[in-house]
Every structure is written in C-alpha cells, then in structure tokens.
C-alpha cells in the first residue's frame, strides 16, 4: 500500500459528495454533501503534504477548514431565514427566480 491510496479514497468521497449534491433536495443535506467534498479535498491536501515531505499542504488544509467553518455559519443562517419565510427547507421550493 502506498500513500496514493489515500488519494483514491478521497476521490471516491468527493464523487459521493457530488452525487449527493445532485440527488438530495433537502438544503441541509445538500450542504452536508458539500462539507463531505471539502473534507475529501482536505484529505488530498494532507496526503500531498505527506508525499512531498512538506507542511504546506497541511497549512492549506487548515485554511480550507477555516473557510469551511465560516461558510457553514453563513449558509446555515441563509437556510434558516429561507425556512422562516417559506416554511420549507427543500431546494425545490425556493424557485421564485424561475418565473
């Protein structure tokens, strides 16, 4: 087993997250799938850092975590305010811009 197996694992996780974003319609679950994709990319960064023997990849993964945390806060607040006005957390119900 080589460290590249981690890259395979993270590729599979990323694909599962992408399929989840396309398939699920609850906005919160879609958001969780995005988090899964971010985590997969983090695993890739950590593995690259380890393959190259440097720490830069880990620093980047750290920054990704910071951005993901603030993204979660704002995104969940948006979902909450949409739910407050439309009484639904389904992404199909927020379709006013379509018409």
């Amino acid at each position: 087993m080589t460290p590249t197996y981690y890259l395979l694992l993270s590729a599979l996780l990323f694909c599962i997250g992408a399929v989840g974003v396309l398939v699920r319609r609850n906005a919160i679950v879609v958001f969780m799938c995005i988090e899964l994709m971010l985590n997969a990319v983090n695993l890739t960064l950590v593995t690259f850092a380890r393959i190259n023997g440097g720490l830069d990849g880990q620093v980047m993964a750290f920054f990704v975590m910071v951005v993901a945390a603030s993204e979660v806060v704002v995104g969940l607040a948006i979902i909450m305010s949409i739910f407050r006005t439309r009484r639904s957390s389904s992404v199909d119900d927020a379709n006013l811009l379509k018409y």
Partner: protein
Amino acid sequence: MTSMSMVHGVLAAAAPVGQVALGEAIAFWVLGPVALAGALGMVFARNAVHSALLLAVTMLSLGALYMVEQAPFLGFTQIIVYTGAVMMLFLFVLMLVGRDSSDSVVEVLRGQRLAAAILGIGLAGLLVGALAGALPVTADVPIDANNVPAGNVGGLGKLIFTQYLFPFELTSALLITAALGAMLLAFSQSRNAAKKSQRETVVARLRGEHARISPLPGPGVFATADSVATPALLPDGSVAPESLSEILETIPVTPAKPLAPLDARALTAARTERAQEKEAGA
C-alpha cells in the same frame, strides 16, 4: 469504476518502492471503508438526522486518518471543529427546521437521479483511473525531515506566521464577516423600532398624525345582519363606505331574494294529515 488500468496500477503498486508501514496500512483499511460507508449512508439515508450522524462518522474516521498521515494537529482540529462544532451546528439547525423535514421521493426532473448517478460514476472512474495511473511512480518522502525540531504543531505555526501570514490575517477578516453575516441573517425580525405605547398612539391621533381620529366603523354595526359584508349605516341611513372591507368590496354582492311568507303548517302537512287520519280512525 475499476478499469483494467487501475487493477494494473494496484498490482504494480505492490512493489516495495514507497510502501507504508504495516500499522498504517491496517489503519487505512479499517478507517477508509468506514469513511466510505458513512458517506454512502449519508447520501442514501432518507432521514436528515441520520445523514448528519453518518457524516459525523465519516469526519471522525477522516480525522483519525489525518493523524495516521503525520498530521496530528489537523486530525485533532478535524475532530474538534468538524465533528464537534460544525456537525452539532448542522444538527441544531435540523432540529430547529424540524426533524421530519425529510426528502420527498418524488423525482421532479425526469431522469435526474439516473443522470446524477452516471455523472458520479463517470467522475469517479476518471479520477480513480488517473490516480491509478500515477500509483507506481509515487515515492514517499518522510515528513519528519522538515519539522523534527519543532514537531508538527510547531512547524505549522512557523509556516502560518511567516510564509502564510497574510492569508492567515485574511481568514480573520473572513471569520468576522461571516459572524456579522450570520447575525444579520438570523435576527431578521427585530428590524422595527420599539413599539409605541397606547398613550403615545392617542396623542398622535389627537395631533392629527393619523388619517382619522376614531377607528374605522366596524362592518355590521347599526345594520340588520352580522355578516362581515354588511356595511355600517350612517345616521341618515346611507352606507358608510369606510366600514366595508377593501377585499370584500371587489366581490359583487347580490341581495338575497325576499322569501314569500310561509305558513308553518305547510311544512308539516303530512304530519297533520296523519294525525287527522288517526283521529278519524279512532
């Protein structure tokens, strides 16, 4: 998903070029399937709370994998920030929104799920195929050569506060902006000023700040019916237009036809006939 090239790549990777230690391999083969199973379960679980918990399982095993991969600081940050804070925030919002807000099974776009599955399998095939092609050439450089004096956390700190200082400061700005945005989005109901007291309202009415001093006459007042569509009557008997609801005014009202005066006995004719027959029979 598993092409022949990938199988070849995996077999070729069995060469002892960049092999990892046995313990790490065991940890990977235990934690990797757990992470995959959690991710698949998250996508396929019908209940959103189950999805959140399965995603927490995936994130926990990813954190353990970080620690195995010589990134202990990131592993602990993963467990504390993601599993501890982010997932609990997700669960909190799920409980606020309502636990039973699960997905509907109805497909809105026809063939969307099939297309998504094909797309996902195709993407996975592409990525895995490309990576499998890169498998044999990977060499493993020990990471300890870079950060032996300070350790993982010390090395990260040194990098963050020297080479990556500006991005680090930018993240602080980002965090403050995110906190402000969340507060702005979450407290949407307290936009108005303080409510006026009753006395202040009366004074404003007497000063003429309102359209009229008294409240609007209610519908049906001084009228013969208590329907909301019945207007109030002015002292001279005419209709007070202000008492009519603006919504109801658009509906044409047809006055009911006056009924012919009914003799009450006509309604019970059959009964009286029977009573008369009974009397006659007796």
